């Protein structure tokens, strides 16, 4: 499918993001639109959302401690190790794998009848390096939304949505 003349992929609504975290973590996760935002964090875990031709049309970035906290809470793992996470390099593979479930649901919410069909691509630690197309998307999105997230008992931080 050509991406020409189609709408940009939709950004998940706040209640959809909250619903996703609450459903998957079975916790009352607090999600709020961030009002005092200047620049996205340089580090974190980023999920790339690609169209059927492999183009990076959107990305969802979370702070490392959110990826770790959500990944741990998803399968009721202890919160202790999450508190030690400082950078994306500290995020355990198991936490990263679990976080992919959340990213997958969020990617599903980025489909509409008027926009290109997209699916979740790679979920990576930014510390491991980004491909050029993802760097470009983060640097020059057409839309960028930011949310504050608090996972009770685990961690709090930010979630950024970038749309090409």
């Amino acid at each position, binding site marked *: 499918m050509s991406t020409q003349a189609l709408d940009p992929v939709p950004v998940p609504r706040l209640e*959809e993001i909250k*619903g*996703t975290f*609450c*459903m*998957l973590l*079975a916790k009352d996760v607090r999600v709020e639109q961030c009002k005092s935002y200047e620049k996205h964090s340089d580090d974190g875990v980023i999920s790339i959302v690609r169209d059927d031709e492999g183009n990076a049309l959107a990305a969802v970035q979370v702070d490392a401690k959110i990826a770790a906290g959500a990944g741990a809470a*998803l*399968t009721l793992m202890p919160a202790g190790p999450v508190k030690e996470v400082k950078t994306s390099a500290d995020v355990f593979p198991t936490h990263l*794998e*679990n976080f*992919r*479930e959340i990213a*997958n*649901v969020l*990617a*599903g919410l980025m*489909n509409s*009848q008027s926009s290109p*069909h997209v*699916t979740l691509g790679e979920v990576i630690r930014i510390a491991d390096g980004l491909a050029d197309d993802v760097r470009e998307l983060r640097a020059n999105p057409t839309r960028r939304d930011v949310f504050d997230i608090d996972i009770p008992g685990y961690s709090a931080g930010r979630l950024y949505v970038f749309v090409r």
Partner: protein
Amino acid sequence: MKILVVDDSRAMRMIVQRTLRQAGFDATIVEAENGQEALDKTKSEKPDLILSDWNMPVMSGIEFLNALRGGGNNTKFGFVTSESTPAMRAQAVGSGAAFLISKPFNADTFKDTLNGVV
């Protein structure tokens, strides 16, 4: 009641089971990681209901459903998937699925959907 939960993600299978419990369904749960394994377990376990993801390796959910119906098995079947376009819904129903639950879901979603089916 026996329910076969099919998803390549262990975490998601766990979440579906948890949501079934929260929705009040006291069922024996059987798990499968893909459509092929689910096809085999449908024959051996004879579930009353199948809840399947759509996108899975080896054999997708829709391929599983088509193989099931093609073999004459009419076990009640629903999709639980992160993607649910109108085209997918039409394909699911056309292949014999009773419903398609899109993620994110909650216990009420399961209650409302499954109570009309089982």
